[in-house]
């Protein structure tokens, strides 16, 4: 296969974001270079706030799937289209596939090569998602890594690890927590955490959400 790239190929570049986002990045990188910003402290702040951007979109998708069996079926058959129904699309046109947890199967997602991540639904990836140890170890020892997240998968459950790439990104549909009969979508969405949609955590228990 030739490694000379066809420049009309849509995957050979990354579509730049809107101007205002470029200005934020410009300012941040200039202040970093001048030593006016402590990268670790800034990253901690951004992590706190960015966590509040995206996961809410994913949480709406999960809450809808828990509430509406027809939506759930569409979501599992064609994640890209079902997520777009709620107004969320990959900015780079990537496809989404949703994998469903059940009593028999627990799913977890990774990008083994870099940090491909469904950010329109989940916000920006946490630092550990981008780290080399997570990317390699989750494939070699999924149960051990999940246990380090405080998530012990019962021995009678299969664990499947899904590798997100530039073109195809995975989202986990967690199991609906017991004790939530009759809850509204908005109430259910409050239980859905970022990690539960990556597969390194579970949704919050109903009692813990109040």
């Amino acid at each position, binding site marked *: 296969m030739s490694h000379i790239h066809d420049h009309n190929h849509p995957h050979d570049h990354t579509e730049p974001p809107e101007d205002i986002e470029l200005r934020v990045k410009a300012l941040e990188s200039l202040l970093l270079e001048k030593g006016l910003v402590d990268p670790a402290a800034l990253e901690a702040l951004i992590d706190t706030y960015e966590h509040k951007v995206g996961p809410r979109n994913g949480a709406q998708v999960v809450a809808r799937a828990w509430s509406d069996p027809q939506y759930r079926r569409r979501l599992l058959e064609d994640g890209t289209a079902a997520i777009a129904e709620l107004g969320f699309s990959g900015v780079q046109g990537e496809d989404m*596939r949703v994998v469903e947890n059940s009593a028999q199967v627990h799913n977890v997602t990774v990008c083994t090569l870099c940090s491909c991540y469904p950010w329109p639904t989940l916000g920006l990836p946490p630092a550990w998602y981008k780290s080399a140890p997570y990317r390699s170890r989750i494939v070699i020892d999924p149960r051990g890594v999940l246990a380090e997240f405080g998530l012990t998968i019962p*021995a009678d459950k299969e*664990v499947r690890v899904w590798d997100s790439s530039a073109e195809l990104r995975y989202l986990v549909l967690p199991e609906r927590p017991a004790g939530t009969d009759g809850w509204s979508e908005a109430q259910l969405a409050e239980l859905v955490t970022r990690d539960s949609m990556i597969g390194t955590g579970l949704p919050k228990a109903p009692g813990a959400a109040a």
Partner: protein
Amino acid sequence: MNTTTHNDYQAVGLPLDGEGPVFEKPWQAQAFSLIVHLHQAGLFPWKDWVRVFSETIKAAPAQPGESANDAYYRQWLTALESLVATLGLTAGDDIARRAGEWRQAYLNTPHGQPVRLQHASQPPTPCHAHGHPPRHEPVAVSPRLAN
């Protein structure tokens, strides 16, 4: 947060919920974090920010079709650029030039790879688009262990 409180945020009309600020897009959280960080680093008192920000809102009101959050954080970023210029931290020309370099870095970065500023002058070698095709089956399975 130690040096800024919810009262401070109310002084600048920040969109809030029970847990703190709310954002619609990642760049809004980044712009917000930058000003809070610079303030916490002791570069200016919060009341100076309140003043510059309220002047900017008056000078650049919300535009038709702009969401409340978009307008708010557009004004926030304009005020931030103005404050850092006043403090002599970085000039507006530098910001515009650097924003152009970031645009070039995006254009030079193959789809799916992390975008880095140095890609503006030095495109990376493709990894994902050519070496990491979409995988439709699990990359690993740990079967059930019982029985």
